[in-house]
Structures are given as C-alpha cells and as structure tokens.
C-alpha cells in the first residue's frame, strides 16, 4: 500500500500522501509535515531555474546552442508564435545540419511570418536566409524575392532593412540580373534610402566601394561610396583603418593631394599601431615635397 501510494502520488500531493501514510503508522505531528512541505516548496522556488524564452535567446546569442535546445524543450508548450520562432531558430542551429531539419524550420517560419509584428518580420527574414545561406543548394533568386516581399510588407522594420542590405550584396555580386556592372551599382544605390538605418547604409556603401574597384569604375566614383561610409563611422577592426588609407590614396590618385594629406595624417593619428604607418609617412613626405616644389614655382 505504501509503495503503491507513492507511485500514484505526484507533486505536492505526493508529499501529503506520504504524510498520511506515515501518520497512520508513526505518530508524527501533522504540523511537522506541513512545515517540511513548506520548506521543500521554498527550496524548490529558490533553486529551480525556470527557463523562459529570453534565456533560450541568451544562450543562442552566446552560441550555447545545445543548452538553448535543452532549455526550450523543458518549457511547457504554449502555442505562441514566439515559441514557434524559437523552435525554428533552434532547428537552424542544430548540429549536424540536415536538409530535413531546415525544411521543418522553414515550415515553422512560414507560420510565424503570418502577421505584421516584429516576430513575423524576423521569421520572414530568416526564411530568406535559409535560401541564401543555409540550404545545401542555395537559391539567391528566391532569397532576393523573399527580401523584397518582406520590405514590401514591413518597410519600417529592422529585419526588412537588413534584408534589403543583403539584397544589395546579392545584386552587386551574385544575381544574374542586372548583368552590367554599372547597372548593378545603380540598382543597389536605389536601395539605400529604403534601408534608412545609418549602420546598414554604411555597410552597403562599403560594399559598393569594393564593387566599384572590382568593376574598375573611376576612382571618383569609389570615393563617393567610401566618403559615405566614413560619414557614419563606427566600423570595427582593420576595415576602419583600410578605409582611411583608401580615402587618402584614392584622393591622391584623383589629383587631390590636400585631401589625401588630411586622410593620411588622420591615419597616423588614429591608428598608430598599424604596420602601414611607414608607407603612409612616405606618402606624406612625397606630398610635402610636391608642395615645396610647387611653392618654389616647380610643377607637381
């Protein structure tokens, strides 16, 4: 009877059922069991780390995907779209990646994307990413369609703007149309106003500058893009140093040594540990020589 009672019992009822059994056989006071039960409840409350979706996202943000997966599995199902989104993202993060799992994630994302809120926008964005990056056989054209569709539906949303930035990258380097390099550059320039957020515009202008060099456009054109990047600032790492060096050198090539001088001086001031500082000092020395020669009536 004791064993059977224990098996049938669960949760708090289990404790009280034990109390009744023990109470029937040993004369312990009922208040002691109540006290014990209360103490256990308190301990449970203090120690139990009730996971919620925020914890799942925190783990995913820190690349702790397995923990996030386990945490999500321990959450009681609530049928919410936010929960479904988390399920889809966990599937995308799952290792090893399988096409089947990604297709399942896409199905969830399609459901979540039915709406006009933030969660729907993120789901729409991630769906496009599946086609551009995640599926074994990438489909840039389909990804581009989905980015455009998201921008049409939620133009003010960050995910839609980020999607347009990605669309810009695909247009510059990967999509079959437009075929002409100049047309590619112009098509991407046309996306910039809708992207709206300065940091994303900066990133796209940087790629426009690289594409302009790749497609051998005039130096002046590249400079326009790079100056737009510079106006926003905030780049991290070597790319920030490369940018100032490029602005200096391309200004020099464009026949504007005064501008070049300013950029080169800034390079030396802002990036004293860059190992190209000697190269930049030599550039400045050449500019100074020219200025000196011009001041004495010599040609450039």
């Amino acid at each position, binding site marked *: 009877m004791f064993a059977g009672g224990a098996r049938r019992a669960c949760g708090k009822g289990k404790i009280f059922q034990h109390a009744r059994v023990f109470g029937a056989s040993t004369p312990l006071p009922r208040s002691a069991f109540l006290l014990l039960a209360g103490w256990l409840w308190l301990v449970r409350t203090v120690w139990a780390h009730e996971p919620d979706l925020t914890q799942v996202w925190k783990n995913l943000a820190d690349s702790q995907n397995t923990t996030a997966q386990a945490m999500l599995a321990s959450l009681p199902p609530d049928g919410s779209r936010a929960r479904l989104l988390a399920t889809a993202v966990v599937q995308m993060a799952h290792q090893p990646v399988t096409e089947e799992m990604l297709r399942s994630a896409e199905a969830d994302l399609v459901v979540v994307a039915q709406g006009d809120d933030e969660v729907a926008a993120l789901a729409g*964005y991630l769906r496009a990413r599946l086609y551009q990056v995640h599926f074994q056989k990438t489909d840039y054209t389909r990804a581009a369609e989905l980015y455009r569709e998201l921008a049409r539906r939620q133009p003010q949303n960050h995910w839609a703007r980020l999607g347009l*930035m990605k669309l810009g990258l695909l247009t510059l380097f990967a999509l079959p149309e437009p075929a002409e390099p100049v047309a590619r550059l112009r098509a991407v320039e046309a996306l910039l106003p809708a992207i709206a957020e300065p940091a994303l515009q900066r990133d796209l202008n940087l790629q426009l500058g690289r594409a302009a060099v790749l497609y051998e456009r005039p130096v002046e054109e590249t400079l326009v893009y790079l100056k737009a990047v510079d106006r926003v600032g905030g780049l991290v790492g070597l790319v920030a140093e490369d940018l100032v060096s490029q602005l200096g050198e391309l200004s020099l090539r464009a026949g504007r040594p005064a501008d070049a001088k300013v950029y080169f001086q800034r390079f030396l001031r802002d990036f004293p540990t860059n190992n190209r500082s000697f190269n930049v000092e030599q550039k400045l020395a050449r500019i100074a020589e020219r200025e000196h020669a011009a001041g004495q009536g010599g040609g450039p």
Partner: protein
Amino acid sequence: MNRRVRVLPLGLWLLGLGYVVCVAWVLTHGAPVLPGRKVTIRLAHWQIEKGPPDGIDAVIKRYEALHPDVRVEQMLVPGAVYRQWLRTTLAGGTAPDLIEYGIWLENVRDVPLRYFEPVTDWLMEPNPYNRGTPLQGVPWLKTFEDELLEQRVNSPEPGQYYCVTMSRGSQRLFGNLKLLREITGAERVPATLPEFFKLCERVRAYGRNRGRELMPLAGARDNTMFFSEIYLAGMLTKLTFAMDRDGMLAMDSRQLEAAYLENRWQWSRPEIRGALGVLAQLYAHMKPGYLQLGRDDAVQQFMRDEALFIFTGTFDSTSLRRLAPFPVGAFRLPQPTRDDPLIGPYLMGHFVDGDNSTGFEFYLNRASPHHTEAVDFLRFLTSYEGGRTFMAHSGWISSIRHVPVPPELASDLSPVDGYVASGSYSTLGTESSRLFWREFYRLTGPRGSVENFTTALDAAMPAAITADLRAEERNQRLTLAPRDVRIAAIGELVRAAPQDPAVRLRRERLESAQNQSEGLALHVECQLRTLAKP
C-alpha cells in the same frame, strides 16, 4: 495493523543501516563529494621550447592563488602533431577551453570559424586585472602593444577578434658572437646583402682552412620559409604597390591571388625572377639538403658550432640564449641595394625585417562549458601583472603595453623603419604555398634555376590559386549560418530590452561583421565565376 507497526520500524532501521553503510563507503572509498576546485580550465599550446611553459606556469600559480575555486591545466602538444591533435579533439568534443592557433597553419584554416568563439565584446571593456596599473580603465584591446594587429589583418571574420596574444616578437638573424669575433674581429653584421655575402664567403673560407664543417647559415625548410616570406614581400614592394587597385597601400594574400588570376602578375615577371635569384644566392650558404630538415635540426646545427647564423623567429631566442654554449646576438636582416644587378632596379626602398606584431594567440573554444572562467583567466594572463610574470619566467617579450622590456631582450624587436606591402608571395594560400615549396628544389637544386622554377610555378599556379580562393569563399560562408542564429537571438534580446544600448551595439557589430564576411564571400565568388582556372 499491529504487525505492520512492528515491521515498519524494523524496515526503517534496515533502511537507516543501509544508508549509514553507503555513507561510510562513499566517505572512505569515493572521490570527494565536492571537488576541491569547482572549475578546471585547460589551455593547450605547442610552444614547448625553453621558456613559455615556465612563464605560463608562473601565471597559473598566481591566478590559482587569487581564485581558489578554479584550476588551470597547461597542456603541451608538440608542433609535429598539433594540427592532427587540434582537428581530432575539436571534432570529438574533447578540446580544451583555450587553444593556441595560428591563421597560417596549413589545412586547418576552417577551424576558427567552426570551433572558436569571438572575444570582441570582452576586448572592448577594460581588463579588471589592470586596476592600479598604468593600464587601468583602458579597454582590453588597447592594452596589447599592437592592438591585436594580426587579428585585424587576418581575422577569420572581418570586424571580429577571435583571440588574444601573449608575446611580441620578430624575426632575427641570431649569431654566434664568439665565432663571429674569431672570424671578423668584431660582433657586427653588415647591413647590406652584398656585404653579407662577402661575410659568408669569409666564413666558408674560415671553415675550410680549419678543416671543419662550417656554414654561414643554419638551414632547414622552416628557416627557408621565414627568409622567403620577408625577402619576397620586401623586394617586391614596388610591384605590390603598382597592383594595389583598392588604394590600401598593401595587398593581402587574397588580393594577390585574385590579381594573379587576372593576369596582373606572373612568376616569370622580371622583378620576381630577380627576387628569386637573390634568394637562391642566400640559400647557397646553407648546408645542402636543408629542405629535408626541420626547425630543430637547424637549431642543433647552430648549437653545434656548425653554422655562424640562424635566421628564425624570436620565439627561438630563449632556447638559443639559454642552451647555446656561446653568447648569442640578435641582428637585423641585411637588405639588398639599388645597385644589385638582379633586384636593384625594382626595389622600392628599405623594407621591414620583422613586424613586431604580437603572437602566441589563444582562442576560446566555442564548446567550452566555462566561457566566463576561461575569459577571466585570459584576462589575467594578458594583464600587466600576467605579462610581467610571463616575461620574467619565459624570456619572451610580453604582448602587453608598458610592461618593461629587459635590455637583453630589446634587440629582439624591430624598429618600424621600412615598407610593409603584402602578405608573402611564397605563402599565399594552402595550395599555392604547397606548390611553391614542392617546386622549390627547381630553384636551388643542383640543376636548379630561376627559369625552371618560375616555369613550373606558372604552369600549375592558376589551379592552385583557384583552389585557394574557393576555400576562402567556403570559409567565409561558414560563418554566415551560425551568425544568422546569433543575430536572430540578439534581435529578440533587443526586442525584450529595446533601451539597452549594450545589446543594440552588440547587434550592430555582429550584423556589420556578417555583412563584411558575406560581402567578401560573394565578392570572391564573383571573381571565381569570371577568373577560375580548372
């Protein structure tokens, strides 16, 4: 009922007895219920030469004294098996928390993006272990002498930092001072290559006259690679600048590779032929067969008094200085001159002969269950105190700013007094580098010539470079999928706390880093579509 009352207490007694026996057993035979230290951090590296392990041990002792709950284990893995060990342990999920890695290690270039975690966010904050030092309140990144230049140049993911560095070093021509004085009457090394070649002839004559085997340069494949990287990059500065379409005043390996496929340079160009000719002259002063030897063989040759000089990284300086039975000096590399018939007309000017960048990089294993503790240990390891302790016990110069460098080590550092133009032409990528060294015998072998070598390279290089660029594109692409997950997650955290500037900044940086990686991957893909050679 009465019987049950009698039996139950007996059952409880038996249960209690069983419990006592179990407790006694656990206490006398089992492991401690609570470990003495709650967390164990493991860090692995291949710097098993004299010095570094002692330096790290000293830092660990101090750290463990400060943190009784944390234990740190140092794992020394020989360089010969390091890459295999790295791949196996990472794939098997048994890799340590902190791992030394170098972006130049062949055949494991995908590792950082697959297995390591960026430490960018931590680097933007001050290192708490620098309180009370000249580095107090300075962002961790800015406490490194070169602000992690190598990571800025070669980060696996543009805009992200994946590691921190332990030491600062360069490349030097280490010389046997006693022998140098015996031969020349002084402890000086010529600053120019023509003068240096004359010295080499004197060394050989000195050996011949005494009937002993004495070479001017200790030779091994590794040392040849060190020489080639610096000399080729330096002697070809003018060519590199001429090809620098982006205006970055330098070109990285990927840009050089793309330029090759665009036919903007070939190995048969006169300036490259000239530079290779100079290298061939240099390597003629190594013992024949050096390409079959490893770095340790060259060190032994030098230690045995069979070579006057050894050109190597300052990572060997502690071993050389502590183990050599003679005084060892560190010298700068002799430079070619403008009147050199082979390379003179193509020279840009004085080039750097050592970059002083910081190295001995530790990366954070993404799968580590102890990210917080591992990063905390990294902070201490690279704090002012950690750097000073490491330098005192290892003989390696610390990577940390303001840590005083002892006078005896100062010559290991290179002044920044020359051009820096590119990654090396000899180690562009895995396949092209393999090809270069596979065919190198055509340059320096008994029937070798510059012509033979460049013809062989130009025949096979397009395919090798195409393979390298494909790998580069693939590696960049590898970052994108995991970053999508992180970006989505951080986006949701922004939604939960829209006013938190730290989370917003984190999102912006991560998105920007991904945009750059993605741009690069698509850029390379675009180049390959038009330029790829089968």
